[in-house]
């Protein structure tokens, strides 16, 4: 019987810079090829909500957590159709400088990352223990990604190489030791690195020098948002069905109003007859932008 339970889902409070937003647009659902993906600037369109005096936190300072505002830039959302936003943790692309062990604890294996190979905007994440929980994914030499394979960083510390004399010449003489600062090298232990006790020779793969890797934070769960920009939806149909309507007998203008009596649609109603005055068609024609403002609801009913 458990002593208690705990939840494993928390509202995320990551920085917008830790987010990557990828946009896909398609004019309709039946487009099956030529997908065009575009990366949006998360720092400018994603904004966290902050506490105010009503929500109990430090107003304007303390992040509310979980709730963010996503601005849809007009330059991108400018057509009818379906926009898919794929929101995922930002990826840091770099390479493994070396794989090594600590000089004082040779059984502690890890990868060494040179901060000079890290994009400038992400270097502030590379601090002592700043990468704990980040995920490493690996790229093959041909640029393809090693599928279904990743490692989790369990510690990260600045380090510097030291020269070690070893009895066994097959071992590397360059090892690493931690330093507090003043180094561009970061020693990251990953999990797993130890061989299972039932097969001690099966040392887990953690990468190799010069291999390109992708380091990703795990601050939030990836999500997708389908945004459909459309002319009509259920509420629109509700207006058409249940909203106020007027029909001008004199000029045949048929007007539909929303719940606030705003003019939603206007149509011309007329009949088409032949030369013998036989009725051929009854027509309802959308007036489009040519709205007859005199048919506003107040003007009609008052």
């Amino acid at each position: 019987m458990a002593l208690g339970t705990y939840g494993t889902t928390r509202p995320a409070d990551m920085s917008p810079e830790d987010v990557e937003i990828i946009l896909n647009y398609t004019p309709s659902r039946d487009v099956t090829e030529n997908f065009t993906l575009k990366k949006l600037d998360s720092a400018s369109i994603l904004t966290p909500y902050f506490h105010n005096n009503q929500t109990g936190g430090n107003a304007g300072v303390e992040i509310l957590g979980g709730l963010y505002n996503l601005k849809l830039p007009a330059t991108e959302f400018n057509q009818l159709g379906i926009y898919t936003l794929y929101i995922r943790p930002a990826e840091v692309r770099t390479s493994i400088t070396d794989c090594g062990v600590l000089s004082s604890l040779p059984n502690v294996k890890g990868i060494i990352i040179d901060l000079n190979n890290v994009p400038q905007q992400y270097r502030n994440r590379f601090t002592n223990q700043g990468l704990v929980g980040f995920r490493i994914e690996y790229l093959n030499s041909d640029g393809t990604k090693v599928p279904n394979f990743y490692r989790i960083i369990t510690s990260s510390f600045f380090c510097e190489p030291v020269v070690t004399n070893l009895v066994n010449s097959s071992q590397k003489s360059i090892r690493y030791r931690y330093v507090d600062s003043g180094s561009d090298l970061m020693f990251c232990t990953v999990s797993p690195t130890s061989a299972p006790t039932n097969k001690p020779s099966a040392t887990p793969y953690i990468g190799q020098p010069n291999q390109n890797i992708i380091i990703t934070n795990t601050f939030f769960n990836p999500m997708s948002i389908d945004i459909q920009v459309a002319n009509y939806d259920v509420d629109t149909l509700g207006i058409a069905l249940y909203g106020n309507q007027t029909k001008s007998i004199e000029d045949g203008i048929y007007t539909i109003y929303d719940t606030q009596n705003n003019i939603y649609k206007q149509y011309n109603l007329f009949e088409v007859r032949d030369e013998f005055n036989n009725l051929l068609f009854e027509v309802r024609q959308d007036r489009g932008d040519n709205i007859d403002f005199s048919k506003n609801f107040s003007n009609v009913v008052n």
Partner: protein
Amino acid sequence: MISDSQYIKISPEVLSSDIIQETLSGNTFGVYSGMSEILSGGTNGSSLLTGLTIPVVFTETFNDLGYYSPFDGLALQYNVITNFLYSATTANKYNITLYNTSDEFYGVNQFATYQVDWGDGSNVESMTLSSITHNYQQIEGNYNIKLIQTNPWGTTTITKPISIPMTGVTIDNPEGTVTFDSQGGNWSGTSSTYNFIFSGDAENTVQKQITSNYITVPYIVSGFTKSKLTDLKTYGNPPYDPTVTIFKEGQEYGRVLTIGETYTSYTINDVVYYDYPNGRTLFVLESSGFTTNDLVAVSLTKEENLLDVAMQPEIQSQIFIERGKNSAFEGLQRLSEVDNIGDLVRYGYGFYNINEE
């Protein structure tokens, strides 16, 4: 990590900018534009939308990163626990003496037995003393000397190569110190030295970890207790002297502050006590945050193969203790004096039958 997905539909009635206000005959009303007109009604066909935003919720599914268990102290490589040196003399370069240095650091080897395999096809020898000598019979070659340690926790073998005849060996760092240049940062290019001799690098003591930047939490803790005034009693007269500070075990213990008719006050271990004539004793002290006394250095090791696994500690032993003969003269308190198997054997007087398997 789980993923989430949302669907949002944006059509004219959810956009306030879609309704254009018009006034006619004193009536003000709104008129809808179609979504297509909104998206292309601006200058050069640009969108009229300017502030389209949607709220989104992000969650994080977290997992404990690992399973940590404390262990009881020094972390040593096995080839430090078990190790040996060898040497030859100038006079006889085929006569190799092996020195067992396994017991240098820890007492865990006290149950260990040792064997030496000289690597030349000769019989494996038991090693009972701290050194043992072997003659390679003038046969030149490269051999591997093995020191085989067997103890209740398993067998550990350390192998070192040797070239016979053994001549002088160049020792790069006779003092066990290496010098290197830092590779980057402010110390780049600056030479530093590193003491390579193993001197307990893994030593992890409280003194190495403490900091004095503690935060005092300023609130008063008080209550009633029993008088401890007699703890400050000194020999001779007067028995309680406000000018005398009492020390215990070399540490300042307390001092009488005032002796009066209404109360007697004194301090013990920074706690102020007030003894009143009615027999009650009031104590007063200020709270504090973490102090050095609250810090206990516990080394952590991670069992990676036990990620996400929590289990109770399990003690595995191949030593079986069988209840031996009862003796009315055997005091049970003797058990508290026995803290290892060796003591149990030596001081058990046959009270227990011990089999090692």
